[in-house]
């Protein structure tokens, strides 16, 4: 059976390798110092989608990302790796959304895209680490969900079989389509960009980008596949009260920088004498023994 697959992907600041310049003096984040990247686990999700497409000819993979204009990079990256189309869900009214308001917007956009059998996303995004958007999108669409997926084993007769991680083990579960799946970082890594697809899609732009940057080859855009559609609140028939800050039950009351109590450390070298002296000291004070 051919499948309609939607991959949810987020552009995130790379919080994994935060350098000393990432925090400002006042304890807030210096976003400019952190590169914007494709959320790592969303790449694992994309790979599962592309594998399904390989195994089920005629399937399509659609990238859906929500963010500011520059998040169009995520759609392009998806196209370079094998996705067929992509949408950028973008509107000032989405700003300040918590996970609930985000899920609402994404669910409305998926309703707009309409045709879907499997919705895939990473387990969680590295800027918030909440893992909430996948299950909340599923709930809003009235679909069931399989989280912490490691591998899709098969799809047949409108049922999907998935190996997933649970605390202290693994389980294999089977569920009905359509369904929402979230994929772990330990799942298969995403294939690299395909050179031909990079050539094909490198000028893919949203209407806003086309307007702002100007078009070197306007005739290219007549074919349509180079235009990345932008979806606004009104495009997806969104209720403003449920979007962005006003649709967010949770509020940030305070943000604190983390300061650890530093200790006066004793510096040693790796020489035999230093190491032996330390071991003897630890034995004497019964830290080891």
């Amino acid at each position, binding site marked *: 059976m051919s499948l309609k697959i939607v991959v949810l992907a987020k552009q995130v600041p790379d*919080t*994994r390798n935060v350098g000393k310049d990432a*925090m400002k003096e006042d304890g807030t*984040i210096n976003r400019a110092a952190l590169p914007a990247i494709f959320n790592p686990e969303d790449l694992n999700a994309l790979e599962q989608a592309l594998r399904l497409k390989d195994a089920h000819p005629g399937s399509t993979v659609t990238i859906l990302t929500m963010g500011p204009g520059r998040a169009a990079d995520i759609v392009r990256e998806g196209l370079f790796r094998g996705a067929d189309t992509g949408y950028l869900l973008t509107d000032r009214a989405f700003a300040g959304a918590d*996970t*609930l308001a985000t*899920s609402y917007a994404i669910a409305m956009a998926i309703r707009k895209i309409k045709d879907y059998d499997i919705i895939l996303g990473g387990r969680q995004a*590295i*800027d*918030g*680490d*909440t*893992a909430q958007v996948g*299950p*909340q999108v*599923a*709930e*809003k669409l009235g679909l*069931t*969900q399989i*989280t912490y997926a490691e591998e899709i084993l098969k799809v047949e007769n409108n049922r999907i079989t998935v190996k997933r*991680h*649970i605390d*202290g*083990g*693994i*389980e*294999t*579960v089977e*569920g*009905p389509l359509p369904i929402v799946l979230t994929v772990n*970082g*330990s799942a298969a890594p995403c294939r690299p960009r395909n050179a031909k697809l990079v050539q094909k899609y490198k000028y893919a732009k949203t209407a806003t980008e086309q307007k702002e940057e100007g078009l070197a080859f306007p005739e290219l855009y007549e074919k349509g596949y180079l235009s990345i559609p932008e979806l606004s609140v009104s495009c997806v028939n969104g209720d403003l009260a449920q979007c962005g800050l006003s649709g*967010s*039950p*949770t*509020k*940030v*009351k*305070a*943000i*604190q*920088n*983390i300061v*650890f*109590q*530093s200790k006066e*450390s*004793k*510096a040693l070298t*790796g020489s*035999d004498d230093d*190491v*032996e002296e*330390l*071991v*003897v000291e*630890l034995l004497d004070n019964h*830290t*080891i023994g």
Partner: protein
Amino acid sequence: MNNLFVYLEIEEQTVAEVSQELLTKGRSLANQLNCQLEAIAIGSNLAGIESQVLPYGVDKLHVFDAPDLYPYTSLPHTAILVKLFEEEKPQIALMGATVIGRDLGPRVSSALISGLTADCTSLEIGPHEDKKQGKTYENLLYQIRPAFGGNIVATIINPDNRPQMATVREGVMKKEILDPNYKGEVIQHKIGDYVTDADFVVKVIERHIQKADHNLKGSPIIIAGGYGVGSKENFQLLFNLAKELHGEVGASRAAVDAGFADHDRQIGQTGVTVRPKLYIACGISGQIQHIAGMQESSMIISINNDPNAPINTIADYVINGTVEEVVPKLIKFYKKNSK
């Protein structure tokens, strides 16, 4: 009405550690709020489960006992919580930030439009003033969690929506029996009132739970490795040292991501929190998210060839050297001097 609820995670017939920790925390928050503590047990063959629950000071235990409710699947447990919360209107609902809690919490919160904070490391009660709207709030739940890859700590509140929901990391709160003979009420609910057959759409075909082959959380000596260990092979050095010292091996997120160590050995905000007597950090630079999970160790030794590694600032001893060089020496001199 408006009590504090804890969802109990139950593996076969045993209440999970994290749920016991939450009951203890829940009891102290309920005392502050002057409300009751209620707990929810959903599973199979739960007869007598109250003996594991009431001693934490639980006033009311809601039991949902049916064959299909174990193992956990998303929809039946969601359906139960949503309907029960609509009836009981809790002010606060807590669950573990485990695979189950992080699958269940967001679904319930989305259905109730309640707001949910994931992976809290601390919960407090306090007031809030919304200057813009000119409103003040008393007795809100402060949901405190690391954010932004663990580089900051955020305090989150749900001023207007109920229940205030939070998932809480395992091991960050302490469990403590309040009274072995605590008198609480046990309510057996009729499953058919809460769940329909259509909720059982996901089938668990196969399930393998392995009892962890190590006890990282409880070990008094931990040898932890970071990305600087360099390879899975070099991690064997750490295991050798751990064997000599009767300790356990842990790892930083970077080492786990690189495939040097198994995920269940990860220490830090996204792994386990540990408080050993001795923590030997090998080739760990000391990202904040790692330090937050081990800073309460009584003694910290850092082995690192980078004298400016952030972890060195919280270490009692800093050995400037490589893991390959220093760890075998520790083993050698331990063997020589311990006899």
